[in-house]
């Protein structure tokens, strides 16, 4: 391992395996999370994401393999370096908000004074200072979510882990929290998102790993993966009078498929594949000859599409 790589990864997971009885939840999984990035851990339900996260949080112990945090094998003292917002989250219903936040912060190793000071900062930031003496059962779900978020980030962890971060959040809260997460990333915090709703986080992620049936399918910078999986498909909108005729003309020259993008005017909408031998410029000029273009965008594969593609490729490889 060279010195450069040593520095850029906050979390390194090597050959992690975990069994529950006869069920293998994770199989020889390795991932590397770069410092200061937002890292998406994506995969369907039951893929093993939560098991992985629980092992990083030392809630579960791996059967084999090693987890390194900041180049040290994971140890109990690392707990205070990690902030974790689980998928199944809640708070003590009958405890007061402030009391509870203090308790949770102190469990993370903050002193009472530190915790109070930081709580005041966040409560003011979210404009919720008057909640301090309320009980959780008096708060709405959205309000409780804000408290949960504060409690997760309060001890200024180096690594933040959000399991299904936006499930159950209303759009306003989701946006607020999203903004805060990006701000934390910009301050140098490393963030892991784990979700099965891939579309919910793909805009925010710098890196992703796809997990399927206990194994890693794909890992890397999001942009690079999207580039690798691009299909040279373009969304094209053309203004014309006889749509059927034009569509026929285009289909004689290019491979087309049905499009599902929205447009304001009533134009012909198609997905057109760029032929391998043609360059993009010629392609564009050729298309304009059919009529004025109202829409021309390269279709970026969604994480869902990439996932399905990667899984089917992998299956082909296994069966081959």
């Amino acid at each position, binding site marked *: 391992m060279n010195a450069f790589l040593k520095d850029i990864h906050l979390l390194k997971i090597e050959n992690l395996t975990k069994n529950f*009885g006869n069920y293998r939840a994770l199989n020889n999984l390795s991932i590397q999370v770069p410092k200061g990035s937002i890292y998406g851990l994506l995969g369907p339900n039951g893929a093993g994401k939560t098991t992985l996260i629980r092992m990083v949080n030392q809630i579960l112990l791996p059967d084999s393999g090693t987890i390194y945090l900041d180049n040290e094998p994971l140890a109990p003292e690392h707990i205070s370096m*990690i902030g*974790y*917002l689980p998928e*199944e989250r*809640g708070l003590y219903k009958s*405890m007061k908000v402030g009391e509870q936040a203090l308790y*949770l912060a102190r*469990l993370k*190793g903050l002193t009472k004074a530190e915790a109070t000071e930081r709580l005041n900062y966040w409560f003011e930031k979210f404009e919720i200072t008057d909640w301090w003496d309320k009980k959780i059962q008096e708060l709405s779900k959205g309000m409780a979510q804000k408290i949960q978020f504060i409690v997760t980030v309060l001890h200024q962890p180096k690594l933040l882990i959000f399991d299904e971060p936006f499930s159950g959040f209303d759009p306003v809260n989701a946006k607020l929290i999203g903004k805060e997460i990006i701000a934390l990333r910009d301050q140098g915090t490393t963030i892991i998102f784990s979700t099965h709703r891939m579309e919910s986080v793909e805009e925010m992620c710098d890196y992703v790993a796809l997990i399927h049936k206990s194994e890693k399918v794909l890992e890397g910078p999001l942009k690079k993966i999207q580039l690798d999986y691009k299909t040279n498909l373009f969304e094209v909108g053309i203004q014309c009078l006889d749509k059927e005729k034009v569509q026929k003309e285009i289909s004689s020259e290019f491979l087309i498929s049905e499009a599902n993008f929205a447009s304001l005017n009533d134009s012909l909408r198609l997905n057109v594949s760029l032929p391998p031998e043609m360059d993009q410029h010629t392609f564009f000029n050729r298309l304009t000859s059919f009529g004025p273009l109202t829409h021309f965008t390269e279709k970026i594969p969604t994480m869902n599409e990439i996932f399905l593609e990667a899984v089917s490729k992998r299956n082909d490889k296994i069966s081959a």
Partner: protein
Amino acid sequence: MEKLKLIIYREFIGKVRNKSFIILTFLSPVLMIGMGLLIFYLTKVNNNSAKEIAYVNESSLNFEEVFVTTKNTKYIDVTQLGVAFSKEEIDKGHYYGLVTIPSEANGLKELASSVAFYSKEAPSILFLEHLEKLVANKLKAYKLKELGISQKNINAANFAVNIKQSNSSGEKSSKLGNGLKIGLGMGSGYLLMMFIIIYGNSVMRNVIEEKTSRIIEIIISSVKPFQLMLGKIIGNACAGLLQFFVWIVLLLILGTVVSLFVGVEFGDLQNTPSKELMQESGFKAEELTNLLAEILALPLLKMFVLFIFYFIGGFFLYSSIYAAIGAAVDSETDTQQFMMPVIMPLMLAVYIGFASVLSDPNGPVATIFSIIPFTSSIVMLMRIPFGVPWWELLLSLLLLTLSFVGMVWVAAKIYRVGILMYGKKPTYKDLYKWLKY
């Protein structure tokens, strides 16, 4: 350690701030003393309405000297009126009841068996026994006099016997002391069972609350599940001990206050029939001092200290099971299937304790069950007032400690897995599997 302290503190404060805890802690001693006072008061009220008892004496014996009017009972000689007329008087409600004493012409035995009592309402057994005793005493005195033995000689031949018993370890006791020991032993054993059930349940409900409110995963990302479970158990144990201390202190204070009041009233007691009964059954005033001496002779401090030891041991053993059950299920209704194995040994301990301590506190049954960890805390507590050899105490405490450490370990494994399991109601087989995760 710092985290464990935080958890213990939160659990303890959460428990003692609870309204029901405060009410139970401060009200139950007041209620207990209050109930005692109420019963005392009611019996007094009951006795205060003096009963008028008429009697027809057809014999030549003089019953005036036994039928002495007291504060509660007034005896009226209605021999002149005759039985039939007197019965009509009773029916009209003029007297409470009528005692008829037939002639002794057929011998004293015949007389004794044909004394009758007539009243509108059936009298209490106690009252009838009292009457029987009065008549019997009179007949006895008459017969003895006939035989030429004076009352003075009879008195000289009456002895109050109180057997003082002692064992090889030098502990002395008497029948009276024995009663006290049985009472104290049973009381503390039963109290311990109640404590284990109440506080064990509280631990369990606490775990279920953390599970259902979904805070559990947030907590165990900061502390080890084992720490959380231990903190819970210790926090609840502290609350339990606090309650126990408060009870003892309150009972002592209230007891002193009440005994001062009752002490003043004690003089009045002298005349009540129950007092007379007490005196006749050999309960003399000086025995009250005996009672006090007997209480002080009990190993009270030892019992107190051992109660705390056995409470902690027994509570840890059982509450770790309660915690594991709480972790395994999603709601309190699902706990039923797992409760049987917890309640059974507790009940068994109490029944064995009651039965064996009454008959043979140092017999083999009592000894064995006071050493088996699941029953030892309760059975041993019941035995302690009677004196238990040191080696038995040590063995029982050692085994209890070993098994609670083992049980906490097993429970922690189930707990660790269970708190993250939702939805499925686990079977015993599942629990066994979790041990190996």
